C-alpha cells in the first residue's frame, strides 16, 4: 500500500493533473482583465452603488459554493438564458465541459484576485501620477509606465492566489458541471470520486499530497514574488 502511495503518477493521474492546470490557467487568464478593471474602479472611483459592487465581488467568498454552482446551472445550463444564447449563437456549451469548470473556478477566484489587485492600486502614491501629468505625460502613458508597474506585485499575487483557488475549486464545479472524466474531473473532484471507491484510499492519499504541495507552493511563490517586486515595500497580502 505504501509503495502505491509513493509510486510515480499513472497516465490517468497525469491527465487529471493536466486538466486541473488547464482549467485553472484558463480561468485566471480569462478573469484577470475584468478583475483589474473592477479593482481599479473600487480603488479609484467614487460612484453610486459602489458598496453594492464591492459586496457582489465578495459574494462568492461567503455564498455556499453549491449556491454559486446552482446559479451557474440556472444561467448557463442548456435551458438557462445565457447557456441557450451561447449555444444558439456561438455553438458554445459550457455544461459538463471543461470550459464550464473554468467558468466556475473563475467566479470563485474573483474575490481573492480583486482584493489583491485593489490593495496594490490603493498603495500607489498618486503624487507620482500627478507629477507625470504635470510633465505632460498622457493618461495612457501614465497608466502603462507608472500605475501598472507599481500595481504589478498585486497583479502577480492575484494571479497566483486565483490559480491556487481555482485548483481547489470543488463545490460550485460539481454542482454546475458534475463529474465527467476527462472533461470536468479536476483534482478535487477526482479525490471525492476516489473517496467513494472501496479501495480508493491510496489514490486519495496521493492526490491529497499532490494538491497540498501545489497549494503550498503557489502560496509561497506568491509571497516571494510580492516581496521581490515590492523591494521591501508594502506587503500586499
Amino acid at each position: 500500500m505504501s509503495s502505491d502511495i509513493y509510486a510515480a503518477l499513472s497516465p490517468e493521474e497525469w491527465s487529471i493533473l493536466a486538466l486541473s492546470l488547464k482549467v485553472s490557467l484558463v480561468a485566471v487568464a480569462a478573469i484577470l482583465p475584468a478583475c483589474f478593471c473592477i479593482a481599479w474602479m473600487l480603488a479609484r472611483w467614487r460612484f453610486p452603488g459602489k458598496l453594492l459592487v464591492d459586496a457582489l465581488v465578495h459574494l462568492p467568498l461567503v455564498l455556499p459554493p453549491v449556491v454559486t454552482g446552482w446559479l451557474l446551472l440556472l444561467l448557463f445550463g442548456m435551458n438557462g438564458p445565457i447557456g441557450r444564447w451561447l449555444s444558439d449563437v456561438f455553438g458554445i456549451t459550457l455544461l459538463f465541459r471543461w470550459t464550464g469548470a473554468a467558468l466556475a473556478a473563475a467566479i470563485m477566484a474573483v474575490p481573492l484576485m480583486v482584493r489583491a489587485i485593489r490593495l496594490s492600486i490603493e498603495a500607489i502614491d498618486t503624487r507620482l501620477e500627478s507629477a507625470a501629468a504635470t510633465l505632460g505625460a498622457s493618461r495612457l502613458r501614465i497608466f502603462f509606465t507608472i500605475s501598472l508597474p507599481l500595481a504589478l506585485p498585486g497583479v502577480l499575487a492575484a494571479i497566483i492566489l486565483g490559480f491556487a483557488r481555482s485548483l481547489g475549486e470543488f463545490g460550485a464545479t460539481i454542482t454546475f458541471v458534475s463529474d465527467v472524466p476527462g472533461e470536468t474531473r479536476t483534482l478535487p473532484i477526482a479525490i471525492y470520486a476516489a473517496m467513494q471507491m472501496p479501495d480508493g484510499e491510496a489514490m486519495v492519499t496521493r492526490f491529497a499530497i499532490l494538491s497540498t504541495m501545489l497549494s503550498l507552493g503557489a502560496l509561497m511563490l506568491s509571497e516571494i514574488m510580492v516581496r521581490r517586486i515590492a523591494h521591501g515595500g508594502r506587503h500586499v497580502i
Partner: protein
Amino acid sequence: MKPPFLRAFCALLLLLSANPSSAANDRGPVILAAASLQDVLAVAAVEWARQGHAQPVLSFAGSSALARQIRAGAPADLFISADEDWMDIVEKGGLIQPRTRADIAGNQLVLVTPIRQPAQVKMGRGMPIARALGSSRLAMADPDSVPAGKYGKAALTQLGVWTAVSPKVVRAENVRAALALVERGEARLGIVYATDARASRKVRIAGIFPAWTHPPIRYPVARLRTSRHADADAFRTFLLSPKGRAVLARYGFSAP
C-alpha cells in the same frame, strides 16, 4: 459592549446552550440511508414516531459516501444501503452488529427522460442510446462506486452499449443528483430507480431495464456496532414489519 446588549447576548448564549441538551434526550436513533430512500423513509419515520417513539434523525447520501463515513467511525445507529456490496464492505470491517442484517426492499432500474424534451429509445441489446442522446448526456450516479450507477453500468454492459455510451456519461454523487439533472433537462436521459422516476413529476420512464441485465436491487439494513440508542432496533424491526413494508410499497418499492 453596552450592558443591555451584553445581557441580551448572555441570554442568547444560555438559550443556545440549554436547547441541545434537552433535545439530546428525546432525539431518535440516527439513520444513514441511501439517497433513493429519501421520501419514503421520511414518511416511515413519521409513522413510527406516531407510535410514541422519538423522531429518528435521517441522513441521506450515496451508499458509498455513507459507508465511508461509517468506516471513519460515524456515530450512527442504522445503515441502509442501496446494494449488498457496500453492506458487505461495512460488515467485513466488523462495523455492524451480528444478526441484525436484513433486506427491507427491492427496486427496479429505469431509463428516464425529461417530460418537456423527451428522448426516444427502445430498450434492448445494442440499443441506440448514444444516438438518442445526440449532443446531450446520460446522467447517472457514479458507476465506479454509487449503487445506482453500478447497476446502470452493469445493465448497459449486458446490453452491449456501455463502451459506446460511457464517454457521454455525467457522473453524479448520488441517484437523486442524477435525477435532478434530467428534471432540469440538462441531460436528456438518466438512469435512476423506478421509485425515483415515480417521485418526480418532471420526468417520465423511457424504458425499464430487464432484471437479468443487472444484479438484483436490494436494500439491506443493519445495526451499526457503535449504535447506543435504545430505540435503534425498534426502528429496524418496524421497517421489516408489515406496516413498514406497506409504507415502502406505497412508494413503489418491491418486497426484497
